[in-house]
């Protein structure tokens, strides 16, 4: 029954409802798959075999008693290691939190549990979500299941790899500058960053509080929408949570009809620096949407080219403040506590030992940007640019319903290629960052393989604030049109991984 790992969440749910299989069987099949391929992929930092099987058995028992269960009850999921889960090791990919077991559930985890979704374990990520490749994880790099010599994207590369290696049909990511969407693009999967404030940040180890957004990863648009619906909605524990109904994402993913939808191609997100195979697939997808009845126009967002520099001032500034809590006093690592060193010295030694290079770079950059004499020129100016980017979006949405671009300028690159070149690494997120700065919803959907390297390409859809449904509408339209051409979703073209046991 190992083909259970090839099913979508929707299919698994149907198999459980009809009594053909149980959540325990499904969960065991995915645990076996993790055992078989994770030596090669390294998507997981922690696998909670016992807890997952207990959760699955509980769902099965409730189903047997005739309890009304949600649409994803009993379906397994991989959780990015940046969200707290009571009693389960949570590291955010950092040595400074090695062995830490949070004493509480994040809101996302609470909602997953309430929905009966089975949490298999915690996935690898760049340290504190700073990175685009998982190479900044203190626990080793995750490998892209399409080509194990390449990175799976980041920061949520463990989640995207778990989904594309059939270790889990669903995963949770968090997106601060593209950490859900870029890994989705690189692994031929679906990833959506909800509207900022649409999903709760409570229990999410903060990178940049004004940008961080948890969201769904899956192999199909409908699976992603169902997961989105399960975790989204107002949370009084997050003071930036939006107190409005969740957008009708599931209905949009089922409908997938773009007739009459006005789509704007962002002129500035293409051309120089973009891989030809990425641009070719992107333009085909735009043509396909035209054939499906959408009205496509070109739109200019002149300030988007300043999104990257503004982001690399705003993010490090917020991160340098957020990461001040890793002070060796209340949780995590403590180094040099020898009765001679004072607290400040212990703090400095601990942070030196516990943080990796990229975290050190960004903390120092943030400290610099916020220091007196530089504040106005850097952080202050970046905030003004943020206003101009939001205005570019507003102006564009007067003409069109959604904006589109490639999700990334290139496909997944080789492990080691950009690790010591921060600026080349940062440019991964050129297309995804504007939506974080403006807070609107955006998603990446698979549209084929680049000719040069046979690696997946993602199509980026940016929708207005609280119109997350429009991302799913476009994603579902593309998915069903391509499924007719390819005989299935893009993932069905992925090479088989060698099974080690």
């Amino acid at each position, binding site marked *: 029954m190992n083909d259970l790992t090839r099913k979508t969440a929707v299919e698994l749910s149907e198999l459980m409802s009809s009594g053909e299989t149980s959540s325990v069987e499904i969960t065991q099949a995915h645990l076996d798959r993790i055992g078989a391929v994770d030596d090669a992929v390294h998507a997981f930092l922690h696998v909670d075999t016992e807890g997952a099987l207990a959760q699955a058995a509980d769902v099965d028992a409730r189903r047997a008693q005739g309890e009304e269960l949600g649409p994803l009850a009993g379906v397994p999921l991989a959780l990015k290691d940046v969200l707290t889960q009571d009693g389960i090791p949570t590291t955010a990919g950092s040595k400074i939190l090695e062995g830490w077991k949070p004493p509480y559930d994040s809101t996302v985890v609470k909602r997953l549990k309430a929905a009966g979704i089975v949490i298999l374990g915690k996935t690898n990520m760049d340290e504190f979500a700073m990175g685009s490749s998982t190479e900044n994880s203190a626990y080793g790099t995750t490998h892209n299941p399409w080509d194990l010599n390449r990175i799976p994207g980041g920061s949520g590369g463990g989640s995207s790899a778990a989904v594309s290696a059939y270790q889990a049909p669903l995963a949770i990511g968090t997106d601060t500058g593209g950490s859900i969407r870029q890994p989705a693009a690189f692994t031929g999967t679906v990833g959506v960053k909800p509207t900022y404030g649409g999903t709760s940040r409570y229990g999410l180890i903060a990178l940049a509080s004004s940008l961080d957004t948890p969201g769904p990863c899956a192999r199909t648009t409908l699976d992603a929408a169902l997961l989105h619906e399960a975790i989204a909605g107002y949370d009084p524990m997050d003071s930036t949570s939006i107190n409005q109904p969740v957008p009708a994402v599931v209905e949009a993913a089922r409908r997938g009809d773009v007739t009459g939808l006005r789509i704007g191609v962002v002129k500035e997100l293409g051309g120089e620096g973009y891989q030809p195979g990425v641009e070719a697939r992107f333009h085909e997808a735009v043509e396909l949407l035209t054939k499906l009845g959408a009205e496509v126009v070109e739109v200019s967002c002149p300030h988007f080219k300043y999104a990257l520099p503004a982001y690399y001032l705003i993010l490090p500034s917020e991160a340098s403040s957020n990461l001040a809590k890793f002070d060796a006093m209340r949780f995590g690592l403590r180094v040099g506590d020898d009765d001679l060193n004072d607290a400040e010295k212990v703090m400095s030694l601990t942070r030196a030992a516990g943080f990796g290079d990229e975290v*050190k770079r960004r903390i120092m950059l943030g400290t610099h940007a916020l220091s007196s004499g530089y504040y106005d020129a850097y952080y202050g100016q970046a905030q003004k640019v943020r206003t101009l980017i939001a205005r570019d979006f507003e102006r564009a949405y007067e003409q069109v319903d959604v904006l589109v671009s490639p999700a990334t300028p290139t496909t997944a690159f080789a492990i080691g290629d950009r690790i010591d070149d921060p600026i080349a690494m940062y440019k991964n997120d050129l297309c995804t960052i504007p939506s974080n700065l403006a807070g609107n919803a955006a998603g990446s959907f698979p549209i084929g393989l680049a000719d040069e390297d046979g690696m997946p390409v993602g199509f980026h859809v940016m929708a207005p604030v609280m119109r997350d449904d429009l991302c799913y509408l476009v994603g579902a339209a593309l998915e069903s049109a391509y499924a007719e051409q390819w005989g299935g979703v893009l993932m069905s073209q992925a090479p088989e991984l060698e099974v080690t046991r």
Partner: protein
Amino acid sequence: MPSITREEVAHLARLARIELTEAELDHLAPQLDQIIGLVAQVSEVAAEDIPPTSHALPLTNVMREDENVPCLTPEQALSGAPAAEEQRFRVPRILSEEA
């Protein structure tokens, strides 16, 4: 002419409470200089009369009722502490010898 010197990076590391080795300074200082070169592009934008955005949502003063809600027990709160004593976090001494 670098936009940030090695000495300035060393100073930032001290402000950020990160003890850097000489080798790390050699490695990180030129990278930070490059990154500052990139982010300085924001100065090209004429934005004198543009209001700053600190946050995508226009929210102010989010309030709730002042009601007691369950919280962590002392044992839970101390469960991740590097050192604890008498139901408290045990920390290294705060004052230095000279003080």
